[in-house]
């Protein structure tokens, strides 16, 4: 009975506002190309940028240490990927994935728990805000001092960066209550856990996915940035960026940038499909 607090839900104002502000356009604006015309244009523009840059750099005799030529960058990437870059990609991926898994799991769990008690939420909110606004890269040197040269300092930094992002967005999702839907479930005899699993969680899911996406971006940022500040003894993509730029080896530097960009785009595409599958009902 307490679940409804004797409120009869209003059926009149069916606004999206009481579902919280959500805009999926950011995630869904890139749609699959439809016609050969579109595909052709996309490829043509890419070729124009790629070879245009190459031509300009050759024309102006720009030295490689000022700006690397695209063809040379791609050639370096292809020739040395398995020998050099695959290892560093793996190091960064490992730190990112481990930290992200820990951070997002804890963030999601905490969000589900604290939204049950408004009082707990008020007490914890300032700390979450501090964690969201403070760049966690700042802690990496400190963690290095305490924990040595392994992967853990970076895993912890990634978890601290991603977790609060997942948490605040998920909490927004869990705060959405639709009394009519809860009443529906209760009228069929649903338990509190069933109401959570079948109503509250699916209702929160679009916001949770947003949280996971924002968290992954912050996590990758922290993994690469942390490596630039104080990498582990195994290196990593961030460590390579610092190394190659200090030696002005710009072809290799460009290759690493390409790998990081590809990683970021892959994460974006992954969440695009996750959002499409699990959150499109709200679009």
């Amino acid at each position, binding site marked *: *009975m307490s679940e*409804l607090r*004797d409120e*009869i839900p209003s*059926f009149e104002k*069916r606004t999206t506002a009481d579902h919280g502000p959500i805009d999926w356009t950011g995630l869904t604006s890139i749609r699959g190309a439809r016609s050969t015309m579109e595909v052709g244009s996309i490829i043509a523009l890419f070729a124009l940028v790629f070879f245009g840059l190459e031509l300009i750099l050759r024309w102006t005799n720009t030295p490689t240490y000022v700006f690397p030529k695209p063809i040379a960058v791609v050639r370096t990437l292809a020739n040395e990927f398995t020998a050099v870059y695959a290892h560093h990609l793996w190091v960064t991926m490992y730190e990112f994935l481990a930290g992200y898994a820990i951070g997002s799991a804890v963030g999601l769990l905490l969000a589900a728990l604290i939204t049950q008690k408004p009082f707990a939420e008020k007490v914890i909110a300032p700390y979450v805000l501090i964690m969201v606004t403070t760049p966690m890269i700042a802690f990496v040197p400190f963690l290095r001092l305490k924990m040595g040269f392994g992967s853990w300092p970076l895993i912890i930094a990634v978890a601290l960066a991603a977790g609060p992002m997942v948490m605040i967005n998920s909490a927004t999702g869990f705060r959405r209550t639709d009394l*009519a*839907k809860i*009443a*529906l*479930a*209760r*009228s*069929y*005899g*649903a338990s509190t856990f*069933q109401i959570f699993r*079948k*109503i509250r969680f*699916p*209702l929160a*899911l679009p916001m949770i996915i947003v949280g996971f996406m924002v968290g992954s971006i912050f996590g990758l940022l922290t993994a690469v940035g942390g490596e630039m500040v104080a990498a582990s003894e195994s290196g990593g993509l961030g460590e390579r960026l610092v190394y190659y730029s200090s030696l002005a080896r710009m072809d290799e530097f460009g290759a690493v940038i390409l790998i990081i960009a590809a990683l970021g785009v892959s994460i974006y595409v992954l969440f695009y499909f996750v959002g499409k599958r699990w959150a499109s*009902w*709200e679009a």
Partner: protein
Amino acid sequence: MEPKLRIEGASKIYATKSGAVHALEDFSLDVHEGELVCILGPSGCGKTTLLWALSGLHALSSGRILLDGTPVVGPRPKEIGMIFQDANLLPWRNLRQNIEFPFEIKKRPVDGQRIDSLLGETGLRDFVGSMPRELSGGMQQRASIVRALAQNPGVLLMDEPFGALDAFTRDEMNLLLMRLWSESGQTIVFVTHNISEAIFLADRVVVMTPRPGRLARVYEIDLPRPRTVEMMFESGFIELVQDMKRVVETGGRDLLEVE
């Protein structure tokens, strides 16, 4: 004969910021097995409060409700099915998943045969894969009726189910409801603020006064069944509409619509 539903001196007082609001005062009524009773009243007369109390979702301040002789103190999913103001479908589930939702909650095997026959009768068979937002309001409400009827409840509580639909769709839905009811014979309590809808559907119409909601008058409707839309234009029907409108008006503000 023992009534299916007995409401004894039901009162409900809501505590609000501006003080206590008497939504329902000393309301008593017996509803018999297989009867279709319409509760008619203006907005804010406590008819929805009454229905939510009948469903066991809300508690009364005083008085009690008996279903088959036992007091209703919480939801009774085996015996009661509820149909809500808008269709109240879950937007993240397609039509079939919505209809199967009560089976999941009750952890019962899905009665596919019953669902299929109801889908056929409501003309929804080709739309089971659609998401709610892809369907019209009438189709959504038909799906919610299928969802409730698939559980085969003895009592169906309907809270202004067709209030948001246009007049044509509403007539169509009323006819559909009566056809389904004539086949399965549930006890139905149907809340509405539309006078002609109430007369058109009901065995008895219970008219309520505005706040605090009290029972004003009970009308026995002896229109023959099956009923047709043409009956709504006969002189006897129209006189009854005017009479009910007067009863509600003497109770206070007039918020009823006459169509």
